[in-house]
């Protein structure tokens, strides 16, 4: 489904985002919202970014969209480092990468009409005159399945699904190549959710878009993504092609995540791997592997040092002591049997 050129479109290299916690001077605790995240996204591909609340997936997404300044690391677009771009080049980059917000109600100015909202990107980048912009707005409304009569209406007059369509339309006005979708369907009912997911798939085909699809809903991520990256407490714990991840997850956390999905087959519940304990507080991330406090296979090494990310076969990586670097490992073998 995805057309792979050899050259990656977007690369996140060693991204960090740390916030100052409470305390002064030495006692000042640092909160590592995102810790050394590196991702490569190929043109036309959909990379899923999945994890529970507080894992840093949204922060990573906002840094990729240049909405948030990373504390360290950089982002390259077609091989060019974004932070070094100046003037015209930086402008074109800003058009090429767009972000779709999770809550369309908060991210669309309630005092603007739909037309104003969609014209704004064109106005900021001084593209076309009034009539031309109006024409593009009407065309975009048709593309996302709303007729141009919506142009004069306000956000609070629309339903959840319609608002999300406007959020997507606004991100498309500048004809971007790369779209970062932050939980685009989490707030929607199932019937509306499927309409938006279909729309996103159609738009991807029609405009050859590349998606970073952020979500906590594993069913939705599975449906939308070619590859999936799993995050826990600010760190990447596993990256895999979507079938590999769902059928043979390596990392114990991914296994727990996938087995926790409520499914309609009655029997599934019985062999679920229940995680004990709570998601740790962001202020006090556990030492070593941050998952060790809840991991059923915790060992001494897990408590002491953070496992490195190692390659496991063609397009898979994992960060877990169960898969030590030195051992001659038959790649692709799931270390821990599921049932």
């Amino acid at each position, binding site marked *: 489904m995805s057309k792979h050129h050899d050259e990656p479109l977007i690369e996140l290299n060693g991204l960090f985002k740390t916030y100052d916690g409470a305390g002064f001077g030495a006692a000042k605790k640092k909160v590592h919202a995102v810790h050394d995240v590196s991702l490569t996204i190929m043109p036309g591909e959909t990379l899923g970014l999945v994890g529970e609340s507080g894992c840093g997936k949204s922060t990573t997404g906002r840094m990729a969209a240049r909405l948030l300044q990373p504390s360290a690391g950089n982002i390259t677009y077609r091989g060019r480092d974004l932070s070094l771009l100046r003037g015209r080049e930086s402008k074109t980059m800003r058009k090429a990468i767009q972000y779709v917000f999770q809550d369309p109600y908060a991210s669309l100015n309630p005092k603007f009409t739909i037309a104003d909202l969609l014209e704004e990107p064109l106005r900021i980048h001084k593209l076309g005159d009034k009539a031309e912009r109006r024409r593009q707005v009407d065309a975009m409304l048709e593309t996302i399945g709303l007729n141009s009569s919506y142009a004069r209406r306000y956000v609070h007059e629309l339903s959840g699904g319609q608002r999300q369509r406007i959020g997507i339309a606004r991100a498309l006005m500048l004809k971007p190549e790369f779209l970062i979708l932050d939980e685009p369907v989490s707030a929607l009912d199932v*019937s509306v*959710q*499927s309409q938006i997911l279909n729309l996103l798939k159609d738009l991807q085909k029609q405009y050859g878009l590349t998606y970073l699809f952020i979500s906590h809903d594993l*069913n939705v991520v599975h*449906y939308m993504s070619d590859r999936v990256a799993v995050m826990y407490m600010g760190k990447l714990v596993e990256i895999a092609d979507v079938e590999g991840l769902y059928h043979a997850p390596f990392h114990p956390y991914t296994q727990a995540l996938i087995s926790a999905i*409520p499914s309609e087959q009655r029997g599934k*519940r019985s062999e*679920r791997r*229940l995680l004990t304990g*709570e998601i740790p507080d962001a202020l006090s991330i556990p030492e070593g592997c941050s998952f060790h406090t809840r991991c059923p296979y915790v060992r001494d090494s897990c408590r002491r040092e953070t496992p490195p990310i190692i390659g496991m076969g063609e397009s898979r990586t994992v960060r877990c002591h169960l898969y030590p670097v030195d051992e001659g490992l038959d790649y692709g073998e799931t270390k821990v049997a599921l049932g």
Partner: protein
Amino acid sequence: MPLLTDWVKKAIEPEPSSQQRNCRLPEAGERDEDELLAVRNLSVNVKSSSRPVIEGIDLTVGRGEIVGIVGESGCGKSVLSLSIMGLLPSALKLGGGELRLNGQSLHQASQRQIRSMRGKHMSMIFQDPMTSLNPTLTIGEQLTESLRLHLKLGGREARERAVLWLRRTGLPRPEAILSSYPHQLSGGMRQRVMIAIALCCEPELLIADEPTTALDVTIQAQILDVLFRIREEEQTSILFISHDLGVIAELCDRVAVMYAGQIVEQGTVEELFESPQHPYTIGLMKSIPKPEKKGMRLYAIPGTVPSLHDRGEGCRFQSRCAHAAAICLDAMPALEHRGGSHAVRCFLASGERREMDV
């Protein structure tokens, strides 16, 4: 697998006994002692316009049974749960129909009588654990409050029972939690406290209004397991409300699907998930992104839910139904039995239905 905690072991044992019981849908009027909650033709109206928000609700919950109510936002599932508890917002009022808990009629009872049953015979947990606890009272105060009210338990005795129930919902260090404040606990821990508060007086019925929707999937699994285990150990009946078909399928014995204020389909989980009859249920199930649907377009039910004032006379789903016939526009179908306890509110006799790919 020595590492498995005892809960998981318990989960692996053969399916719970309640499966074998044939949950017949008893006819109106006939009382059988196995029935804890009986709802007959219940309706709730808007006070100002007396327009029905929910109507014609027929539902029963047996002892030790978990009955699910599934529906999308605005279908009236929360209004139903609040009407049973007698906690309807001031803008709504109980229209007609009967509400019976343990044989006692709730629809005729006075406010005082219903209040004495709340917490004692029926209790409720809610969706957002972050806001459902009083921020200025300790967990202990909020737990012992019910024990003192209903069981007249003194200080030490109440504390002991509180600690017992906190431990039962799987909370570590229950004594420490008693003296802590809600903001010091995570979402999952607060939901366990809510369950402890709701069940500490051992009510027969627990109503759970989307208790895991605001939680992460690994925490949700833990909470569902607590509910399942409590039903096993205490025979507490649970009325579980959710918009997530997966959660319903996993936890419930029987389920009712609600749409625009009405129950459109009802039956055991097997009946409903293996052979759904109502076009809305079918459409809903086909909209869920499942692994086997990868690469295919998802089915999307056309149109939107009719609002309160333009529901029209006929079937409320007719404007979005692919099989809408003339009769669907002018008459309201009744909830008819289709074998076993499976009931559907749809005119299309099963034989006549054109093949719908499930």
